[in-house]
């Protein structure tokens, strides 16, 4: 599987993502600098975590309008799989590729800890190797992960099975509506999540639950 990771000024989990992708897919991913205008031809485009542009103004706002995002939108339309993790999720929302927005955590504090994630939809390319309702463990590390969408958008997301991951009961770390941790677009190729599966891939991390997500994509591509 060929993959690309977009690097914005202020991205800081791109190295973690590059490492995870290479470890799990066996192919070295391409790092793409934000000023580029075209993405390479790949099976998966990843927007990694971090504080692009310092997360100033709004998280993901400035990166959401970077040069490369025009091609991300084009690729999304053409059906390429796109995944945003943490800041990447925030950027996809700001760029309008996913509905809603990630607001400041309800406690107004950055939160880094392991949480349980419940698979709300196991029929996506990103979660097919989990089972529906399964709870797996994954770290979160963010200050703005509080998912919000208009009542109409929310109803649509829930109705169409576009809510893919939820924080397990009682473990919502940020006040997200409906405990939403990850969503997918209606077409099923653009996926965003706040937690960091790339930091849960080898025994050193305490568990390898996050690996399954990458393996799902790998299987979908094959």
């Amino acid at each position, binding site marked *: 599987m060929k993959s690309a990771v977009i690097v914005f000024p202020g991205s800081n989990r791109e190295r973690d993502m590059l490492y995870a992708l290479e470890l799990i897919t066996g192919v070295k991913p391409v790092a793409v600098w934000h000023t580029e205008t075209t993405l390479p031809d790949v099976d998966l485009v990843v927007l990694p975590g971090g504080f692009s542009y310092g997360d100033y*103004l*709004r998280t993901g*706002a*400035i990166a959401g*309008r970077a040069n490369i995002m025009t091609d991300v939108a084009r690729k999304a339309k053409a059906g390429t799989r796109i995944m945003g993790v943490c800041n990447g999720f925030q950027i996809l929302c*700001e760029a309008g590729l996913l509905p*809603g*927005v990630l*607001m*400041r*955590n*309800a*406690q*107004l504090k950055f939160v880094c800890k392991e949480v349980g994630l419940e698979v709300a939809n196991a029929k996506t390319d990103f979660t097919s190797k989990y089972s529906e309702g399964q709870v797996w463990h994954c770290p979160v590390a963010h200050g703005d992960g*509080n998912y*919000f969408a*208009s009542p109409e958008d929310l109803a649509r997301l829930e109705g169409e099975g576009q809510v893919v991951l939820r924080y397990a009961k009682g473990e919502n770390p940020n*006040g997200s*509506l409906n405990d939403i941790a990850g969503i997918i677009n209606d077409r099923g190729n653009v996926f965003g999540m706040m937690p960091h599966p790339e930091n849960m891939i080898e025994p050193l991390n305490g568990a390898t639950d996050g690996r399954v997500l990458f393996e799902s994509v790998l299987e979908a591509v094959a």
Partner: protein
Amino acid sequence: MKARIKVTLKNGVLDPQGKAIEGALGALGFSGVESVRQGKFIEVELREQNREKAHAALDEMCRKLLANTVIENYAIELDEK
């Protein structure tokens, strides 16, 4: 020309910061605070001297970047003169 832009959350949009400030004010002993909403206040200095053109440019800046119109409203104020 100087401009001031107020970006505020739309009605019905959750405002965790406002809520927390409200709580904190209560804890500090301020009673009678019914609600708090937090927004942004952006001051822009423009080379443009024509008020209309300046306003049009600022409006575009707001729509393209300064406000997320899914959740935010904005208001532009230009310096007198």
